């Protein structure tokens, strides 16, 4: 039986990547997932106790312990509501 033609036309041979290029692609994707997967990591940090980071973060001084409490549920600052007559400081980079 003749094969049924498709709208895409005859199938082209699959493009094969060189193994090294494929490795680089996979490494890049993993890196991107890790880097942009920050949200998952940050959400997990609230519950995990398995990592050295989280277990140690709960161990410092009284201030450090406060830092891991409810106030650490977000990494966002709170915008100001007024700037009148307030003294100014600067952030110039380090």
């Amino acid at each position: 039986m003749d094969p049924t033609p498709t709208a895409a036309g005859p199938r082209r041979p699959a493009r094969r990547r060189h193994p090294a290029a494929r490795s680089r692609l996979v490494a890049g994707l993993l890196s991107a997932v890790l880097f942009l997967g920050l949200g998952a990591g940050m959400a997990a940090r609230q519950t995990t106790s398995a990592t050295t980071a989280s277990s140690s973060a709960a161990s410092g001084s009284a201030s450090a312990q406060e830092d891991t409490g409810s106030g650490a549920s977000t990494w966002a600052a709170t915008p100001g509501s007024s700037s009148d007559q307030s003294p100014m400081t600067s952030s110039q980079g380090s």
Partner: protein
Amino acid sequence: MPTMVAPAELRFRAMGSDVHLLVNGPASLLQVARDRIEELERRWSRFRPDSEISRLNAFAGSPVAVSGETLGLVGRALEGAWVTGGRYDPTVLGDVLRAGYDRTFEALDDASERGGAGGSALGRGWAGVVVDPAGSSVTLPAGVGLDPGGIGKGYAADLVVEEVRAAGAAGVCANLGGDLRAEGRAPGAGSWVVGIEHPLRPGPVATVTLDRGAVATSSRVRRAWGPAADRRHHLIDPATGAPADTGLAAVTVLAARGWQAEVLAKAAFLGGLDRGRALLTVAGADGLLVDDRGRLHPTGGFDRFLAGGGAGVDR
């Protein structure tokens, strides 16, 4: 009639940086804050042979007893590395030394060579660092060095602000070399005002206000050394072990805590424009990225922080 408390401020040098303290409360708290910052510097400076960080590096491979503050610092540094997938890496000390940053920044100059002094064989390895809260100790992997650098300033600001607030200040801002944390009511009208310096020309690039939180800026421009043909800076890319060239001149981040802002600013800088901005968005933080040509790239929510309702960015 309410008692008016005069604003108090103090400027001095510590941790290799200009420190600016603002307190809405008794002026005596300024000295309390200064003493605390200087104590933390004695614990964390890699240029002091008797500091806890120097002992950690000297005895890498073995557990080293440290203070609660240092446990907290190392824990946060590891957390920063974890949430950024290692883009922020506190164990780049060997790379920093190999780039020539082997003495205090004040001692570096345009003739400083690469290579530096001892420690050039150090490798990276944040995932192998062990923190033992029960034993109050930290163990670095053998052959790995810790450089608390910027996160030390950010976390010091966190500790000082929280302690001075607990001591009775209505508001306090601790700014260590541009890494700052502010809480409570600012002297005056209430919000804290922060000028973000332009990395490529004199003057501020934006002025922001916040009621509480932190600001940190990572710049390749300010902490740089070496001759023009071999200019180096302290922002090491863990992927290459060399000072990063990402097309960015500086990244400023606004976050809840000083150490968080520092981690995000450095990781966003190392990620480059697109990934850096995406990182801040995913983290729920905001910031301003300045590229090598001086063009400004704010995050979507950055305008909420601008003084004057959005007219504060010099685009």
